[in-house]
């Protein structure tokens, strides 16, 4: 009786000017576990909480390296993210092959934006049920972009998407003015602390459920060189967690986190 008549396909507007299928896709992003991204003048950091479907299974991959200078973190349907990240890998490779140039970050983000938009305008298609944080470095420095199922892409200074990401966003907003001048290590710390904020009461960051990736503007013999995409996963995040996040039992509060930043 009160059935919504305007959500059968992603090409029909409701009388209020909404496209329900796109909004439902955005719900899928909110179901995904949280990912955080932030940039300084020299680095971009992506952090993510991984989930396992069951105790016996492995953890779902949350951060994908696209190229030496480019990586994405995903929240939502991982299989849709694979389609998008494979497309980004193709474009990235094509740019390297025909021009010998790493693809500019904005360019590849606009490409997936256009792809996502087209599914809101063609009958029989469905929107991607995934949100991405795209981090990368190009001639203009480090960048972070948010991609959402509507095809909207925005450049961000810091961003968090996924379940309970509001807590992480609050953390990022509170520390926003510090990020620009952060060192690599400080930025990683903020990335992990923002991630930690959004965790449920009984959860904590462990080597099993935490992923982190860094890309930076580096230099070699006075020349500008990209500090390649580096993913910290599994045992590798251990030292980072130890250095930056207090583990269970010590009951640290927000005050601690804020002190160590300055």
């Amino acid at each position: 009786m009160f059935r919504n008549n305007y959500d059968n396909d992603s090409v029909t507007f409701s009388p209020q000017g909404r496209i329900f299928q796109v909004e439902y896709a955005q719900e899928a992003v909110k179901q995904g576990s949280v990912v955080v991204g932030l940039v300084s003048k020299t680095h971009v950091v992506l952090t993510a909480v991984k989930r396992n479907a069951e105790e016996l299974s492995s953890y779902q991959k949350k951060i994908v390296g696209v190229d030496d200078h480019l990586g994405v973190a995903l929240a939502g349907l991982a299989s849709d993210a694979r389609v998008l990240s494979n497309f980004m890998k193709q474009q990235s490779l094509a740019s390297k092959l025909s021009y010998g140039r790493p693809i500019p970050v904005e360019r590849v983000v606009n490409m997936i934006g256009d792809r996502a938009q087209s599914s809101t305008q063609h009958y029989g298609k469905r929107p991607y049920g995934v949100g991405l944080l795209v981090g990368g470095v190009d001639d203009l420095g480090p960048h972070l972009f948010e991609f959402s199922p509507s095809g909207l892409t925005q450049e961000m200074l810091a961003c968090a998407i996924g379940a309970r990401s509001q807590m992480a966003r609050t953390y990022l907003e509170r520390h926003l003015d510090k990020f620009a001048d952060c060192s690599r290590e400080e930025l990683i710390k903020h990335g992990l602390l923002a991630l930690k904020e959004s965790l449920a009461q009984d959860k904590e960051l462990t080597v099993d459920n935490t992923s982190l990736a860094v890309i930076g503007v580096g230099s070699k013999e006075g020349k500008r060189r990209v500090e390649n995409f580096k993913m910290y996963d599994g045992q590798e995040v251990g030292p980072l967690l130890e250095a930056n996040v207090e583990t269970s039992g010590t009951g640290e509060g927000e005050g601690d986190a804020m002190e160590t930043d300055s």
Partner: protein
Amino acid sequence: MNHYPQAWGRPRNDVYGPYDHSYTHSAMPKTHTQSPAVTGTSVLGVKFKDGVVIAADNLASYGSLARFTDVKRIRTFAPNTVIGFGGDVSDMQYLDRLLQTLEINENYLSSSEHSLNARNLHTYLSKVMYKRRSDFNPLWNMMLIAGFDEDEKPFLASADLLGTTFSSPTLATGFGAHLAQPLLRRLMPNDEESVKDVTKEQAVDAVRACMKVLFYRDARSMDKYSIAVITKDGVDLKEDEKLENQSWAFADQIRGYGTQVN
């Protein structure tokens, strides 16, 4: 008239004999694109400590006929890449349009100015040339690409109709490869290491001297030429230069040509 529409409007077979299809379908594929028609001769390029000089005369020959005397064979690709073309002029015009399209697309896709440098363009052009030669439909050109690489160092490289690439602190195509290149190499006794000791004036003087030598000895050359000096500040392209201080005194010494038998 009969009831076969495909025969309507055609000469009637019973009157004119069967239609000779060899008029429209030749037995062999097109081959006229495999040899040049209207050609430009040498292009010269020399690196110096903070840029590159490149020059080519303004002549387009039809065989041995000096057919067009006002053809600009040096084109710029903003902000500071310059490409000099030797070989077929119509293929040069095709490549020029290709580069124009590329420039427009790149600028359209970037929110700031595009990031293609001379090295990127050289990679791109060499792939275009190799693709076309692999189709047995080569673009009959030898090109010099001059500008700066990603480290803002002077860049000079060639690409030819086979897709072959070559890079050196001094380069010359066509007849210049035999006549000018040995003279230009005097500037660079230690190859790449010598570039830092060569001033803009030295490089320009050497190129102008070589243009003169080429005019003396290359029968497809002309005394009107274009010269471009590329520095970080941009491109200084002069398209209407005349050879100064010509001396034909040496001509007396030459024996064995034309009406002069010994």
